[in-house]
């Protein structure tokens, strides 16, 4: 259940405004596009320590990563 909303016009305003289906699609598309852009900037940095850990604990992982590359 939605939390009680205070303020005179807000409740009426919100209840009259349904989120149209296209808005979900638009936001999802925008999010996915931004995800791809941000991944280009930060994905390697974000996963690098996990990769280092994998190599540290399983030395063969480096060879596997080389093979994949």
């Amino acid at each position, binding site marked *: 259940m*939605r939390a009680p909303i205070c303020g005179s016009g807000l409740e009426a305003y919100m209840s009259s405004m349904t*989120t149209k289906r296209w808005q979900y699609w638009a*936001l999802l598309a925008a999010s996915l596009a*931004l995800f791809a852009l941000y991944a280009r900037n930060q994905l390697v940095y*974000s996963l*690098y320590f996990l990769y280092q850990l994998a190599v540290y604990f399983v030395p063969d992982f480096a060879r596997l990563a080389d093979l994949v590359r």
Partner: protein
Amino acid sequence: MTSEALIWALAAWSASLIFHLALATALLPWLAARRPAIDLVIFGVLCVFITTAVTLLAGLAGWLTPPGLGLIGLLGVSSLVAYRPGQRALVEGLQLLGAIGRAGRHAWQPIPTWLRWTTVIFAGASIVRFAYLTLLLPPFVWDSLTYHLTNVAHWVQAGRIELFETPMVRIYSAANYEVLAAWFSVFFHHDLLIEAAGLPAYALAMAAMYAIARRLGAGPPAAWVASLAYATTPALLVATTGTKNDPHMAAYFLSALALCLHLFAERSDERPAGLGPLFALATLLLLAAGTKVYLLQLLPAIFIVGSLSWLRSKRRQSLADWLRALRRAWNQLPITTRVALLLLLSAGLFVGGYWNVRNWLLTGNPLFPYGVSIEGQDILASADRTAALNFGRLAENLRLLAERFGDRLEPIRPDLPYVTGWGWFVYTLGLPASAWALLVERRYRLIFLGFALSFLLMLMSTRPSPWNMRYAIWFPAVFALGFALFQERLRDGPAFARRAFATLLVVAFSLNVATTLNYNRASPDEFAYMANRSPWSRHAASLRLTVPSEYENALVYVPDRTLIGYHTHSNGFIYPLYRADFSSPLVYIPFSPETSCSQIAERMILAGTRYLFVAPEHSPDSDIAHLRGCGDAGTHLRERARGLYVLNDH
């Protein structure tokens, strides 16, 4: 540390902790809003405030020792339990905490399964992450090693809060965070848990985000998403255990907004005047005033959110009416409650004003060592750096922000060099959802306006530098709130959208945490190197992420508990020389290239030390070269190890 000393330290710490929790519980009924989310925020604020206030008072009295704080705790709990109004307040406070717990259980019920699992995994991962970062790595962030923790180390070593001679004038800065960090270090006389001083702020920020989202109209699941989203923001995560005061300021700012929304966003005929939460807000702002001076830049957001909420929601009640209602509420309070509230406010004034009043009395500038200049006009003279309010800085900082936007230049590290640190959630989900919320949700516009105004003021006044986004780690919270409002609508949305956004959220949260596992700095080898040492000998000097090897030389070659003379410039590391257990006493030895070698030796003898430490980057190059010349001449000093000089015996 012997096991007997450990037991005594734990006993003293327990007494102190129980006293602070009991006092916060006893004060809660007088400040409570009787809204569980807001009451949780107020309880968190009280816990941090009481710990800071008690430690500050004890420190100024020279009782910053385990027996001193333990005894205060013991006496405090005994008086609270022995005094009948104290007993009543304690019982009522426990009932309120029980109500918060019940409300938490009630709020958990509508949370969807995927979010429950995300929460459980996030909580487990956070406990492990915070534990290993706190226990394995010693402090290494620049400003901590220059002045934040230098204050802490000196105070714990001396058993009192005091000024001391050092070239680092920033030890004069408002230091409530350092007082809290001292409380985390004093019982073990060690910095093993010093990084945990950021954790109360982290928890408070999460509670405040939940409360704000609820006040904006989000249900418990969406409000919890807002809280989790902000809690996984890399800028906040790396700062929490980074031994700096920025996470505390973020938590205080968000808590103040939550209290403002509670106080002013509801119609007056629906609820009482809110005297208790108003006192809580005042206490919180005073605590923040003594933590970091950039509260001044955050106040406009708090004012805007409070006043616009008032105008929108309290139209039937004038300011005069509200003040009369507050006065009536005050007059109806029993005398013990009034005394308790006035004592709390006085403690707030002390905690908030102590540093600035001390600096004003000693230097004539309450904000010493910072100066203030507005559009080229000097308002307060500077000793170190100047907070200038002008449009030139705004333009330059906006240009820098545009460069850093999207975190495309560097990995996200503490101090946020060349990045915003807002992370995966903000840039992928937060931005579009906030744009949507700005178009659709009127109440969100109000909160966004407040955040934006304070952010612009911050950019207008902060010195342009690669690292200044660390002053704005509170800003990404506004995107989490925007997403919470979208998430609330999503509950009635199509199944594909719910599933897609849930997946994206989990991926964004996971990547945010993954990028902060090692601060993007420490390698597994460095973790292993520190893990192989005893917890009691993990010195900041041993971790070479930012600290040059000269510092470890000093700890190796100078016998423990021996006075070390040091010569650093006004932005050099001092803290690593204290050792992790604060056992090395330090003394500053000033000299310049014009000082003769014999004069340097005389100053060392006068100060009572045989050793003199310098380090590249942290001591002026010309002074290092001069000292090296003295060492090469060998008449008064010789080089014992790189960066460490010792008096000749003859």
